[in-house]
């Protein structure tokens, strides 16, 4: 059937996709611009990637657990306006904590919907997306809130450590910590088990529902973090800040290689995806490529990567896995065994 060399080449291409992408972007950027391959640019790329990065990081455990969370944008907006609103009320740092807390709270609502009320995560988070986007507009009367203390958040995007800014440093640290948790701790490994086959995991004594609930709360935490950081960095809480972030976050996660089907994924992969996307966007932007053309490239890239992935790995039963991935509680009847 397939030429063996092509198959191997394809497989390697997919495995090393991130390396290839980053190198390609670096080459493209370096050739087309004379100030792309500089420390400044790298710092800028890392810094700008932070907000999407947090969202993508939060999305990763949810996807690994076989669920999906569409409400991250709305959670981010809510967290952002809370942070700014609370600043004069309880002080800058508590306000930031309050913002993150709001994210956790909404994440808990998602968890409730999915685990207790057994609502499909796609539908549940679509509903919370609508509800909280709406709520954000209502609470602020649709106007962005201005911070009473714009200087407070300024250091977040200042020079920190060589190529880092404080917020990108926090982001990178979070990515590494999540990696450690996912790959090196028993709870992390359990999450993969839950995502691969929830009923089987439950049979082996893992509290699948608990893990799934926790993943939504975690997603809320990171969305809260993203919203808090962004609102402090721009000294404004916008009720629509998160709306444009959902698609880039999903794109970054997918570019990184985490599957939407559950059971696979890695925070470092997500980190790579975030960086690749960020670098590509910056390179295109500096070249004055209009945003709609950027969208074409990003879309094509997404389709290409996912198609290659599918062709190369040849995973069968994707649709039933996708369906199964949105189920939650163990069923009464045993599911058919999936083949690798």
């Amino acid at each position, binding site marked *: 059937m397939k030429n063996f060399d092509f198959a191997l080449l394809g497989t390697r291409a997919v495995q090393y996709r991130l390396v290839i992408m980053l190198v390609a972007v670096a080459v493209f950027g370096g050739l087309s611009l004379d100030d792309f391959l500089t420390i400044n640019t790298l710092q800028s790329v890392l810094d700008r990637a932070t907000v999407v990065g947090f969202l993508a990081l939060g999305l990763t455990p949810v996807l690994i657990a076989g669920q*999906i969370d569409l409400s991250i944008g709305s959670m981010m907006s809510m967290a952002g306006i809370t942070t700014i609103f609370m600043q004069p009320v309880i002080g800058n740092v508590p306000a930031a904590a309050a913002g993150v807390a709001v994210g956790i709270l909404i994440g808990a609502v998602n968890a409730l*919907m999915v685990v207790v*009320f*057994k*609502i*499909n995560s*796609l*539908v*549940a988070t*679509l*509903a*919370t*997306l*609508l*509800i909280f*986007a*709406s*709520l954000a*507009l*209502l609470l602020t009367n*649709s106007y962005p809130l201005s911070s009473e203390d714009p200087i407070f958040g300024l250091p977040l995007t200042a020079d920190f450590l060589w190529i880092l800014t404080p917020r990108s440093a926090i982001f990178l640290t979070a990515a590494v910590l999540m990696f450690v948790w996912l790959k090196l701790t028993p709870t992390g490994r359990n999450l993969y088990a839950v995502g691969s086959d929830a009923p089987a995991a439950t049979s082996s004594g893992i509290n699948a529902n608990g893990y799934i609930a926790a993943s939504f709360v975690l997603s809320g935490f990171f969305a809260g973090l993203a919203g808090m950081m962004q609102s402090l960095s721009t000294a404004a809480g916008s009720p629509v800040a998160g709306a444009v972030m959902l*698609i880039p976050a*999903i*794109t970054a996660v*997918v570019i990184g290689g985490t*599957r*939407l*089907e559950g059971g696979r994924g890695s925070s470092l992969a997500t980190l790579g995806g975030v960086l690749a996307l960020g670098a590509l966007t910056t390179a295109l932007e500096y070249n004055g490529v*209009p945003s*709609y*053309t*950027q*969208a*074409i490239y*990003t*879309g*094509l890239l*997404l*389709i290409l990567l*996912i*198609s290659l992935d*599918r*062709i190369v790995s040849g*995973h*069968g*039963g*994707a*649709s*039933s896995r*996708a*369906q199964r991935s*949105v*189920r939650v*509680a163990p*069923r*009464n009847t045993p599911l*058919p065994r999936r083949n690798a």
Partner: protein
Amino acid sequence: MNQLVAPAKSLDKSKTPGALFSTLSIPIAILVLVVIGSIASPSFLTVNNLTNVLNANSAVGLIALGMTFVMVSGGLADLSVPANVAMGALVTLGAQESMGTGLAALMGLLVASMGGVVNGILIGYLRINPIIATLGTGSVLLGLSQLLVGGGIVYAQPSALSTFVKSSILGIPVFIWIFIFVALILHPLLARTSFGRWSLAVGGNYQAAQASAVPVRFTKAAAFAMTGFLAGLCGVLLALSNGQARPIIGTGYEFVAITAVVIGGTSVFGGNGSVLRTVGGVLITALIGNLIILLGFPSQATGLITGAIVLGAVGIDAYFRRKAGRL
């Protein structure tokens, strides 16, 4: 492996509370909304207003009809809808001068359908996750539409077709007729034909359907192709009736369509659902939007109310399904 297919049928036939709720919930909801409306405003229960309500949602309703097939067959959702709407609209108006309105409209439908076909191939044949695939194709198509138009508004030439689209027959606007016409075709397609049974089977249990020699890949692909076509139709109609079009024309329509289908009771899991239910869902969504303005609520509250209703509807449905042992 002995999973039965299409649990919906058995659900409807049984007289469990869940089944009753399932069948009656839509008419009851509509009734409740109508009652609220008549109390809220004297102008609610007028022919004019009710016609408006139906008219306003007929175009988007077409998309919801297609989305029903997507969900029923386990395709989750089609997020490329805004792009197909935009393409349908822009191609129609863009080609109008050189091709004449009729041909231009057909071109618009063709381009949008091709978008749907690409989705179908990626999802049905390459087995790519529908969310990612449609996000990708949607990005590309929307970007293309903006590239083609270069940012401006495309204006329509006056034409017989656009006059027709804006007119009424027997007092009912053409938009509504078109919606009814499409619904009358699609409902039996899902409920009575082999293709409909295939769709339900594929969504209910892919492996079992495959084992029973159902053309699973084609069925899944067809749902997306259909939605692409209907989204394009929506775009063509809007372009002709508004007299102009911009790439943002379809923004948010995918969420409206998904919401209508879900409120109608079709499950995102796939395997059950009906076009008739979606029509009910479209009506409910339309009434909510209308009531919000008539009751003087801020328009931002639409998302809040719609989202709450979705959660309520799906939550209750899930509760009954669990009791019936289907979850």
